[in-house]
Structure formats: structure tokens, C-alpha cells
């Protein structure tokens, strides 16, 4: 893994005049007449609420991540309604903790892995129906209405970040609909983000005092995440694939 100090803005994330107009129009019209405008824009409700000027992302500091802590995993599960039933190969795992032992030095560290919200997401490229899509603010989602359950996105995801729902689901959260036979993954708690909040994993990690996960707008140079990315060396997973993930790691 090579270091990848993100001091420049990611490609395609410039806030152009067109983006500004589109984002302003989306906010205004979604507020005034959502039903009409969503059809007029030809996009989903999730896409319409995204702000093209932003690129949401996470910075995960493996140096602060406690190998024995799984608060982020528990929080995600509680927030989004997926459960550990003791079958790790078929259970949904929107986020998982990985323990890393350096093969040469023996040093042990840990970090959470979830959807990396790539700028060039392979899952979006390969999805035959376009159910996998990326919002203009960089959040990668699955449209649960058009996912046919072919699982090609799971073949393509370099991070094994997606889960197929193998069993009937019940007691779903209204903000995180799930359906048997479709694919799902971390939504970056889009329902919270769209209302000005932060993802549940970030909140839970902060509550433990570790503060190993920081959430923010990668495009905003004044944001905490952008400042840290500019200041410290960080890396992304599978940098060889040039996917420019929205999730970055430090101290791996």
C-alpha cells in the first residue's frame, strides 16, 4: 500500500457553476414540490437530496482504533437493522473490524472496513440495471427497487463491502429499507447526512473516546477531515486500482 497524501481535490469533484445551479435547484424544488420535481429530474429521491459541491468521506486512524472495540459495528447494526446471526458467511456485514498483523514486524493493528464510497466505483460500472449508483456528493448506494439480485457488484467490489440478503427480513428501519434477494452495503448513514448529521459509526467511535473515525466533506478545505488529510500521510485501500475512495486510512 502506498501513501497517498490527499492535498488536492479529487478529480470530478470541482464545484462548477452547473453543479451549483443543479444543487440549488434540487434543494429548492425538493422542498417545494418533491413529487413533481423528482420525476422532472429523472433521478431518485436519494440523488435529488445530494449536494454536488460536497464529497462526503471518512478518515480512519488505525492508530486510535482499539482492536477489542466494536462500537462502530454495533452502532451500524442498530442504526440500520442488520444483524449478526452467527453465520458470518451469509450474514449482512455493512461494516466489519479487521485485525492486521504485519507479516514482517508482528505489529498488530485494527480498523473498520466498509463501503469505500469510491469516486470510480466498480459496483456502479458493472451493475446491469443501474441500481448501484453514486450520488453527486460521492455516496454510493443501491436502489432497492431496481436491484435484481444478480450479485455482479459483489464480484466487482474490491473490498468485499457488499452483502446479499440471504433470508427474509423483518422489523426493518424505515430509513434503511432492506429486501430479501437484493444487495446492500454501507450507506454512510445517508439519512443522517442529508439532515445534517454524521454516520452512526462515527458517533459511536467518538463516544468511546477513541475518535478513530472522522466524517466530513473532503471538498471543504476548512473541514476537520480535509485539514487532517492535508497535514498527515494517509492511504486508501487498493490504491493500485485508482478508484479514489472516499474512505481514507492513516497509521495502518
Amino acid at each position: 500500500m502506498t501513501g497517498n497524501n490527499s492535498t488536492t481535490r479529487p478529480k470530478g469533484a470541482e464545484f462548477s457553476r452547473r453543479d451549483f445551479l443543479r444543487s440549488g435547484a434540487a434543494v429548492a424544488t425538493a422542498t417545494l414540490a418533491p413529487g413533481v420535481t423528482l420525476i422532472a429530474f429523472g433521478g431518485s429521491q436519494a440523488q435529488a437530496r445530494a449536494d454536488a459541491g460536497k464529497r462526503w468521506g471518512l478518515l480512519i486512524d488505525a492508530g486510535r482504533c482499539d482492536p477489542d472495540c466494536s462500537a462502530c459495528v454495533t452502532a451500524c447494526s442498530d442504526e440500520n437493522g442488520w444483524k449478526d446471526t452467527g453465520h458470518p458467511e451469509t450474514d449482512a456485514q455493512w461494516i466489519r473490524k479487521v485485525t492486521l498483523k504485519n507479516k514482517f514486524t508482528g505489529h498488530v493493528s485494527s480498523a473498520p472496513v466498509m463501503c469505500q464510497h469510491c469516486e470510480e466505483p466498480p459496483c456502479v460500472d458493472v451493475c446491469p440495471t443501474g441500481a448501484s449508483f453514486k450520488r453527486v456528493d460521492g455516496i454510493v448506494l443501491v436502489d432497492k427497487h431496481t436491484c435484481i439480485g444478480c450479485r455482479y457488484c459483489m464480484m466487482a467490489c474490491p473490498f468485499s463491502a457488499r452483502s446479499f440478503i440471504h433470508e427474509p427480513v423483518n422489523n426493518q428501519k424505515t430509513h434503511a429499507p432492506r429486501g430479501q434477494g437484493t444487495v446492500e452495503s454501507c450507506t454512510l448513514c445517508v439519512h443522517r447526512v442529508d439532515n445534517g448529521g454524521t454516520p452512526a459509526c462515527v458517533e459511536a467511535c467518538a463516544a468511546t473516546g477513541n475518535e478513530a473515525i472522522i466524517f466530513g466533506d473532503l471538498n471543504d478545505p476548512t473541514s476537520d477531515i480535509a485539514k487532517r488529510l492535508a497535514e498527515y500521510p494517509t492511504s486508501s485501500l487498493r490504491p493500485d486500482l485508482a478508484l479514489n475512495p472516499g474512505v481514507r486510512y492513516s497509521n495502518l
Partner: protein
Amino acid sequence: MERTIYREIKATPHLWETAMVLAAFIAAALGAVIYVEHHGHIVTGMNNHIVWGLPHVFAIFLIVAASGALNVASMASVFDRTLYKPLARLSAVSAMALLIGGLAILVLDLGRPDRIIVAMTTYNLSSIFAWNLLLYIGFLVIIGAYLFTQMAIGIPYDTVRRIGTLAFLWRLALTTGTGSIFGWLVARPGYDAAIMAPLFIAMSFSFGLAVFILVTTALCRLSGRQVGPLLMTKMGRLLMIFAAAVLYFTAVRHLTNLYTAEHAGFEDFTLFSGGIYTWLFWVGQISIGGIIPILMVLHPTFGKTPNATILAAVLVVLGGFAQIYVIVIGGQAYPMELFPGFEVTSSFLDGEIAHYRPRWPELLLGLGGVATALFAIGLGAKVLRILPTTLSDANLSPKD
């Protein structure tokens, strides 16, 4: 040279028995589909590591064989080999039927098969999978038209040749697309190789001809029609060349991987330490599906008998299944390296070889797809005039 007369096959008790057996397999597959759709894919052996399982092995075999089953028609129309002209109609029908059988499996294994209309109407054109759907539909339309031009009265032969050439080019594109479903998966060490496309084309030539040989033999035996031993031997020779081509592309693929340290782990897994996958590779794919049938056809005495061709075709089919199993399942079982230089452990079992044990609903669905293809070929031969009354060697022209 005798005039070729095409006639529908007669409804003999043997034919009915065969149809009933195939129908039973199709019914069992539909039962398995309902069972899986009710309980979810949890009742299959597939999981979040092995997301494509045994149904996909069957489906990909049939789809690859479909384009290859068109070989004989292409040999006749495009390359003007008179020997194969009497079989061109059956070749076209077999190609369509095999594709339908393979697609039926793919669709019925979807997590949401009820959304097939979404798949048919909503295309993401950056997806090779979506391109494949268009290639499949185009294949059926073009082969249908090709069959029509062959069977309709008064169509000039030039027209048949032109549409036959289009069908041949289309089938090359189709198999390129099928191979690219894997070749374009950049993240997985078992895929991500441009050679997947030509490898799949070679596989299609080989598996398709093998299936066609067996289908022709079975149909002629069921309908009491003669197949000339020289015709069979010629097809056996052709099959040998195609099987050798598969071995060649397989060797190039693995030698290229072995040359780069990056792929050493995956090659060690496939060639030496992969358990069932290594066994299927060497015994199934290379020996049973490649070397043995080639040597069998080359044998100075046995190789000149129709039985050598039939047996070689059976072995190529078995080896073909083994090969696709190794590519599809083995390629997923070998873990992706997210953190180079680290030993990784997690609740998702990162860093471990993934487990997969196929279960009966998957097997029934796969067999049902094969039965669907065979039933469709039989039905075609029953209602259409696609099978000559005789395939005796009297039809061989001197240049063959």
C-alpha cells in the same frame, strides 16, 4: 452426392420417454426455484464470498456451448464446408436452445427473478453484463433469421451466407462478452485478464462442438437415422483441434500469471494447494477434458471409430464443467488482498479461502437448465424440418 431431405423426427415411445425424463428435470428445477425464492438463498450453498455458485457454472457452460454449437453451421455457410451443410439447421437450433437453457438458469437464480422486466428495460450501458444481455437477445434474433433463410423456399444462397457470416461474427462478440464478464473484474486475482475473452472463445468452440456431437448422435439414435462414421471422425478431429486450443490458452494464462510475483499466490492455489480446485484443474480440466480426448482421437485405430468421437465429446463436456467450476468458484474462493503485507483476520473471514458446498436446489436448477436446452432441441427437431433423414457419408464431397 445424395440430396439432403429434412424431416421432423417421429414420436416414438423412446422419444416420449426421453421427453418425460427431461420434463421431470425441468419440473424439479422449477420446484427448487420456488423453494429458494421462498426461503432465500440461505438454502443454497452460496454466500457472501461465493456469490456465484453451481447454477452459474451450468449457465455459463450452456451459454459458452451455445455459441460453439453454431460452429457446424458456420463451417457450412461461412467456410463453405459441404460436409457440414446438412447439419447447419440443427446447429442453429441447438445454439438457440442452449442459450435459452443457460439464460433460464441465470434469471431463475436472481435474488429477484420477478424483476426480470427491470433487467429487460433498464440498461446501464457501462456494464458488460448489460451488454451481454443485448448480445444474447441479438444472438437469438440473428440465429432465428439465419434458420429462417436456411429453411424458407426461394432464398438465394448468398443471403444465407451473408446472414451466416453475421451470425458467426455475432457469436464471436457474444463469447468475448461472456469472457469479459470475468476478464474485466479488476479486483480479483483470479480474473482481471484480457486473455479471458479468447480463452472463452476457444472453450466455446470446444464445448459447443462436443455438445453438438452428443445431441446429433442422440437425436439420430432416437429417430433411427444413420450417422456416417466418416462424418463423426471428421467432427472428432475438429474437436481435438478445439480442445488443444483450450489447452493452449489455458497454458498461456497460467504461465503469464506465474511470471509475475503478484499472481504467485493465486497460481499456487490453482495449480498446487487448492484442494478440490487443484484436483478439478489437473484431473478434470487438463486430463479428462483435454489430454485424454486428444490422445483418444489421435489413436491410430480407435481414433477412426465414431465411438472415439462420442467418448471424446463426453470427456470434453465433463472437463468443460470442471474448467468453468475452477474459473467461477475457484476465482471467488481465493481471497482478495486488501492489505498487502499483513495477515488479516475479521468477522467476515477475510484472508481465508472461502468455503462452498453446493446444495441440491442449485444442482436441480442447473440440471433443469440443461434439460430445458435439450428439450428445446428435441422439440425443434420434432416440429421443424431440421434433421436430415440420413447423415450417411455419401454426402461427403471430395474436398471434405
